[in-house]
């Protein structure tokens, strides 16, 4: 939209949580933030990564929804669950490979990042990208990203045999073609498995 794309650059995140505060300011979901700032490896590092919805080409959250409540719009944005349909079953929460959807038990509704489509559809940046001081979250034309970033944007993720293509790109090291994620590496319950 308007020649701009959304980029997440984990290496730039300073963990300031401005994005969380900005997200919760939005009038359409005031007080509820739809962005997560996650620690990657809390015992060993303070590194954080902001997680917005990646808006998959084939959204798993919507595929598993038994109530047909999650829709991908024509702008490519995967929306929050439709309020009259959502039954708060949490299927999407379990299914999303990026851990984006969260069920708000108070309203029995799944709410997730919708790339501020009310803003992006009129040429504004999403709230989080507007406030991010290090531009770990940025909504820019691809040319600007190519000029100013050392890494390159990747929107192809491999979860085992599952290939997930997304609308939002993640800035990866220059040599990476696709980001492969071994989910077992990130399981805290598994002790130090995969972490040498």
């Amino acid at each position, binding site marked *: 939209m308007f020649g701009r794309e959304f980029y997440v650059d984990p290496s730039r995140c300073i963990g300031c949580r401005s994005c969380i505060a900005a997200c919760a300011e939005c009038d359409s979901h005031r007080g509820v933030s739809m962005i997560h700032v996650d620690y990657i490896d809390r015992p060993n590092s303070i590194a954080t990564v902001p997680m917005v919805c990646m808006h998959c*080409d084939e*959204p798993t959250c*919507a*595929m598993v929804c038994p109530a*047909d409540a*999650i*829709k*991908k*719009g*024509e702008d490519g944005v995967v929306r929050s669950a439709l309020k009259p349909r959502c039954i708060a079953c949490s299927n999407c929460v379990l299914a999303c490979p990026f851990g984006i959807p969260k069920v708000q038990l108070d309203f029995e509704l799944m709410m997730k990042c919708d790339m501020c489509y009310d803003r992006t559809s009129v040429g504004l940046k999403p709230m989080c990208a507007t406030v991010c001081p290090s531009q770990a979250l940025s909504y820019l034309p691809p040319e600007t990203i190519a000029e100013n970033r050392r890494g390159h944007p990747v929107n192809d993720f491999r979860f085992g045999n599952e290939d997930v293509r997304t609308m939002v790109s993640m800035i990866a090291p220059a040599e990476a073609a696709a980001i492969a994620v071994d989910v077992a590496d990130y399981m805290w319950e598994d002790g130090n498995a995969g972490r040498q």
Partner: protein
Amino acid sequence: MPAGSKPDKPLWTEEFSVYASEDKFVLRRQFTKFLVLTSFGMLAGNVWILIKSLVRRPRTAFPELAIGRASGIASGEVKLFNYPTANDPCILVRTPSGRLAAYSQKCTHLSCAVYYARAENRLECPCHEGYFSVEDGSVLQGPPPRALPKIELETRGEQLYAIRVVENRARI
């Protein structure tokens, strides 16, 4: 992604597509909106018809049309003609009592052509079985809301003329 790009997709992906543009499921709200807008449309149409019927002036000037010789129509016989314009079919009947009567042939219900049923001595519309009296054009049975418009006749010598269409006030 367009529908049908993978032919082996399960049926639910088609019926309850995750892509909003392919969604066929109608929400209660959408349905209610449709009902409300449709009834507003109906209201607007009815108001328009009402205004049109209030503004309309009844036709006052009629041409004269020679139909034929009055003696040429025997009792129980029928002659069709067009009056006042070529697009207004009319029917002329000589009743068994010997009187000549002419009516518009358009049924007042849905404008099907009425015909003369000699055995029952009445004008019948075959579309919805609307029957009219041949004596005064009034409705005998069926859905027609008004009596058939009457064509006023005048005999000059042997020649029969249609001179006017009169709105038929005959009771149903």
